[in-house]
C-alpha cells in the first residue's frame, strides 16, 4: 500500500500536531508487491500482498517510547500517539538520548522504475513462462521466485524534518535441478527496473549449470584457489560491511576492527590494496534510499579504499561522544571491480574451484569474523586453465577479512543477489581468491 508524498506528509503533520511530547519522530512505510513462486516446473504460491506501517517515537526529556501500527484513521493515529507517549513516560531517562534532527538536504531518489510499479500479474507470468519451457524441454526441474515491489518510506520529526522516498525493486532467483538429483544450477539478481529483466537468460544460466554439475566428484577439503561468482562475493562482503562495520563496538573492544590496547583500526591498511568498497545512493547499478539512520541523508561513503579501513558506521550519540561525524548505515554497497573476465580467471588458474554461491552462512567467531557456510548450485574443478569436472559441495570456514586480503584478480562489478545478505542492494565483481578454506565435504546437491 503506497502513500503519496503529500499523504505521508499530511499524516506526519497530524501526528506531530497530536503529540504532547517534547519531541517526536514519525516513520511511515508501505509496500505493494506481486510475486510468482514456482517449483517442479509449475506455479506454486502466487500473491499480491500489500501493507503499511506507521511508527511514532515520543520523547519527554530523555525518556523515549515508540508505538507502531497500521491504522491510519484519525482515531488510530491518536491511539498510536497516546501509546508511544504512555510508553515514553514510563521509561527511565536514556543518558544517550539524541534529540530528533531538523531539516536536512537530500538527493533525488533514482531507485524507481514505472515499469516495475505497473507490471501486471500477466506480465510476471509471461516473464516466467520461457524459464519453465526451457526446463521442460530439457527434462529438468525449475524452481524460482519472481517478486516485483513498490515501496515507500517517510521519516519526519517535530523539529521540521520530512523526507520521502519511493522505490521499486525486483528479485528473481531460479534454481534448476536434474531429475537424477545430482545436478543443480542457479541464477539470481535484484533490479530496479522490470524492463531490464531477462528471466529466460537467467533460466538458461541455471540450466547450463545444472547439466554441467551432474554427477560431481568428491575432492578432499583444504585450502583452494577459488573463483567466487558475484552472489558468493555479495554474501561475504554484505555480511562484513553491512553487519560488522561498527565504530562503537570497535572502540569498545568487541569487534574485528578493535586495535590491541584500545581504539579502532580505522585508517590502517586492513585489507588488500585491490579492495575498495563504498555506498552511493545514486550508483546507477544499485541505486538506493536517499536517507538512512535517524533521517540522516544517505551519502556516498567509502568504507574501504585501496585496502585502508576508511569508515565504520557510527550513530549520532557515539559520534558526538567520540568527536566524529555520524556515519549512517549503508543503504547500498558497491565493490570496485577490475577487468579480468571469468574466462581469463579460469585460464590463469592452475588448480582451483569455481563457486556459484553460498548457503546458510553463520558467524563462528566475531573476533575474526570467521564464518561458516556451504557452497551450493554448482562447484567446478579448474585444472591447468580449464574447467574439467563438477565437484561435490563443501562447507567453508573462512573470514571475509582474510578473503579480502587474498584477492588475485577482480572482474567487472555487476549487480547481484546474495541469499545470505538479503536486504542490502549490492554490486560486486567476480573474484579470484587464493587459499580459501574449505573444511569438509557435503553430500547435498
Amino acid at each position: 500500500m503506497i502513500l503519496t508524498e503529500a499523504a505521508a506528509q499530511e499524516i506526519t503533520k497530524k501526528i506531530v500536531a497530536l503529540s504532547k511530547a517534547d519531541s517526536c519522530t514519525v516513520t511511515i512505510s508501505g509496500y505493494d508487491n506481486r510475486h510468482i513462486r514456482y517449483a517442479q516446473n509449475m506455479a506454486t504460491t502466487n500473491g499480491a500482498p500489500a501493507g503499511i506501517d506507521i511508527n511514532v517515537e515520543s520523547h519527554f526529556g530523555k525518556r523515549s517510547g515508540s508505538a507502531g501500527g497500521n491504522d491510519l484513521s484519525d482515531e488510530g493515529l491518536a491511539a498510536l500517539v497516546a501509546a508511544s507517549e504512555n510508553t515514553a513516560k514510563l521509561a527511565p531517562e536514556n543518558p544517550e538520548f539524541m534529540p530528533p534532527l531538523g531539516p536536512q538536504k537530500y538527493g533525488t531518489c533514482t531507485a524507481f522504475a514505472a515499469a516495475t510499479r505497473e507490471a501486471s500479474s500477466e506480465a510476471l507470468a509471461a516473464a516466467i513462462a520461457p524459464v519453465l519451457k526451457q526446463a521442460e524441454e530439457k527434462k529438468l526441474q525449475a524452481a524460482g521466485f519472481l517478486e516485483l515491489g513498490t515501496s515507500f518510506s517517510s521519516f519526519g520529526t517535530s523539529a521540521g524534518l520530512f523526507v520521502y522516498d519511493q522505490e521499486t525493486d525486483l528479485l528473481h532467483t531460479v534454481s534448476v535441478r536434474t531429475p537424477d538429483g545430482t545436478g543443480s544450477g542457479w541464477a539470481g539478481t535484484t533490479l530496479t527496473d522490470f524492463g531490464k529483466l531477462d528471466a529466460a537468460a537467467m533460466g538458461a544460466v541455471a540450466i547450463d549449470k545444472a547439466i554441467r554439475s551432474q554427477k560431481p566428484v568428491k575432492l578432499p577439503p583444504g585450502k583452494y584457489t577459488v573463483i567466487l561468482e558475484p552472489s558468493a562475493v555479495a554474501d561475504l562482503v554484505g555480511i562484513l560491511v553491512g553487519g560488522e562495520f561498527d565504530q562503537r563496538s570497535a572502540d569498545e573492544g568487541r569487534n574485528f576492527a578493535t586495535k590491541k590496547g584500545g581504539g579502532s583500526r580505522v585508517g590502517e591498511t586492513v585489507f588488500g590494496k585491490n579492495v575498495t568498497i563504498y555506498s552511493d545512493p545514486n550508483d546507477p547499478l544499485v541505486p538506493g534510499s536517499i536517507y538512512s539512520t535517524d533521517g540522516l541523508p544517505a551519502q556516498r561513503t567509502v568504507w574501504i579504499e585501496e585496502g585502508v579501513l576508511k569508515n565504520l558506521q557510527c550513530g549520532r550519540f557515539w559520534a558526538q561522544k567520540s568527536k566524529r561525524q555520524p556515519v549512517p548505515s549503508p543503504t547500498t554497497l558497491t565493490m570496485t571491480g577490475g577487468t579480468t573476465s571469468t574466462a581469463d580467471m579460469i585460464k590463469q588458474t592452475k588448480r582451483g574451484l569455481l563457486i556459484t554461491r553460498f548457503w546458510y552462512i553463520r558467524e563462528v567467531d566475531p573476533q575474526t569474523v570467521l564464518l561458516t557456510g556451504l557452497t551450493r548450485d554448482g562447484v567446478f574443478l579448474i585444472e591447468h586453465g580449464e574447467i574439467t569436472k563438477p565437484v561435490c559441495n563443501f562447507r567453508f570456514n573462512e573470514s571475509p577479512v582474510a578473503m579480502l586480503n587474498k584477492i588475485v584478480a577482480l572482474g567487472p562489478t555487476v549487480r547481484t543477489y546474495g541469499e545470505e545478505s538479503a536486504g542490502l542492494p549490492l554490486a560486486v565483481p567476480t573474484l579470484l581468491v587464493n587459499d580459501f578454506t574449505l573444511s569438509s565435504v557435503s553430500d547435498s546437491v
Partner: protein
Amino acid sequence: MGGCACATVLPSALFLDARHAAAIEAAEQLDLNGRLHLADVAMETAKGGGASYADFRLCRYQSEYFEVKEQRLEASATGLSAGFAVRVLLDGTWGYASSPLATEEEVKRATLRAIDVARASQRLQTRKFVLEDVPVYHDRWDMPMESDPFLVPVDQKIAKLMAINDAALKAGANYATASFAFVREEKFFASSRGSRIEQTRVRVMPETEVTVVDQATGHFASRAGFAAPRGSGYDYILGYDFIGEAAKAAEQAREKLKARPVVADDYDLVLDPTHLWLPIHESVGHPTELDRALGWEANYAGTTFVTPDKLGKLKYGSPLMNIVADRSQVGGLSTVGYDDDGVRAVGSEFSIVKDGIFVNYQMAIGQAQLIGQKSSNGCAFADSWSSFPIQRMPNVSLAPNPKKCSLDDLISGVKRGIYIMGNGSWSIDQQRHNFQFGGQVYYEIRNGKLGGMLRDVAYQSSTTEFWNSMDGLGDASTYFLGGAPNCGKGQPGQSAPVSHGAVPARFRKVAVLNTGRKDLS
C-alpha cells in the same frame, strides 16, 4: 503487460491519498459478527470469480519489545498490526492477496486481486493443486496462560531487564544486553468449506547476552543466555532465574577468555538440551518437511535427503531416537488449536522418527495425496496476516529415555569428550546432510568426569551418521523445552516460532574442529 478480464484492480488503485487513508478501519475494531460478514463477502466474491476453494484470515498482532543495554533503555516499543488475506484456488492454481484495510469494499477488491493473480498464473500450472477434504469446524481456541504479559506494567518489565544487567555487570561483565519481546496473535479463519475458527495465543521471547573485554590483548568473549522463547504468559518470565544466570554468564564469559583451546579431533559429545534442541530443529525438523521432499522449496530453503521412498525405511538414528511432533505441548511455540489451513491441530500428535526409523512427514493441505497419504497433519502456518500459509514445523521434540538416566550418567560413560551447553553458531546444507554447530560453553570430559572449560569448539557431522551414533539419552527429569522464534522459510520469506523439547544425549566419535584460527587473529 497482458490484458485480463479480471485485471480491474491495477496496482495504481492502491496508491492512496490522505482522504482514502483516513477511511482505513482497523481489524481490531471488528466484533465477531463483523468478521463473519467480511468472511462471507470474501467467500461470495471468490465463488463468483470461479474459485473452487477460498479461505480468509483476519489477524491482529499486538507486540511489545524492551531492550536494555548495560543500565540504559535502548528500546521501548509497542506495536499493533492488523489486516487480512484472501487465498483462492482457481482451477488448481493458487492466488492470494492481502490488505490492512478491513472493509467490505477492500475485501472484495483483494479477493478479485487474488483471482487475478491466480488466473494470470494458470499458464504456468502444469499440474493442478488438489485439496483433500478436511472436517468443518466452528470453534474458538485460546492458549491457557497464567499472567498476560500485556497487563504487566511497562516499568516493571523494564525494571526486570535492568536488574538482569545489573547482576551481570556486578559479576564482572563489561557489557550486558537483555530484552523481552511479547506477541499476542489473534487469528480469525474462514474457509469456503464452512469453517469459522477464532484463536489467540501469546509468545514471550527473552534474550540476554554478556560480553567481557580484555583490552590489553584485544580479545573479547560473550555468553548468551539459555532462556528459551515460549508460548507462555509472563509467569514464565517470573519463574526463570534470569538474575542467577546473568551472574553465571559473566563468570563463564571471563572463564572463556582464559579457557584452553580445543585440540581438533574426534570426541564423544554430551549435548545439553539447551544446545540439542537446535540440532533437532535443523537435522530432523527441516528434513522431514514434505514440501521440501516434493521440491517446492528447492529454490530457497532447499530439498531434503529424506525422500518419500525412505518413508518407513530410513534408519535415521539409533533405536533410542524417538522424535514426536505435536501442537499441544504446554509452552510450545507451535502449540495451537487449528493450523492456518483450518486443520485441527490439537490431538494430532504424530511420530516423525520411531525407534530410530523415519515414519512420517510434516504436511500442510494439498500435499498428503502426493505421497499416498490421506490428509494433512496440521502443519500449516502463515507468519502474518499478509502471508500465504505454508508447511511449517509443529513442536518437534526428542522423547526422553523411558529408563532412568541422568546427565551425570551420560558423562560418566565418556573417557574423552566434551560437554556442550547453549547455542553458538549453526549451519546446515540445503539437503540437511552436513552440519556444523557451536555452543556457548564447552567443558572437557575426562574419564567420566567434567573438567575445565574449553574454547574454539565446533563440531561437524552429517545427519544420519550423527543420530546413529547416539548411545545415551536422559530421562524425563532432564527434559528442557528450547525453541526459536524466527525460523526462516519460504519466498517471500516467513518467520515461524517453533519449540523443540530435548533431553541431554551422548554421541560417539564426532569430528570437532578448532575455530580459533591463528591466521585470522
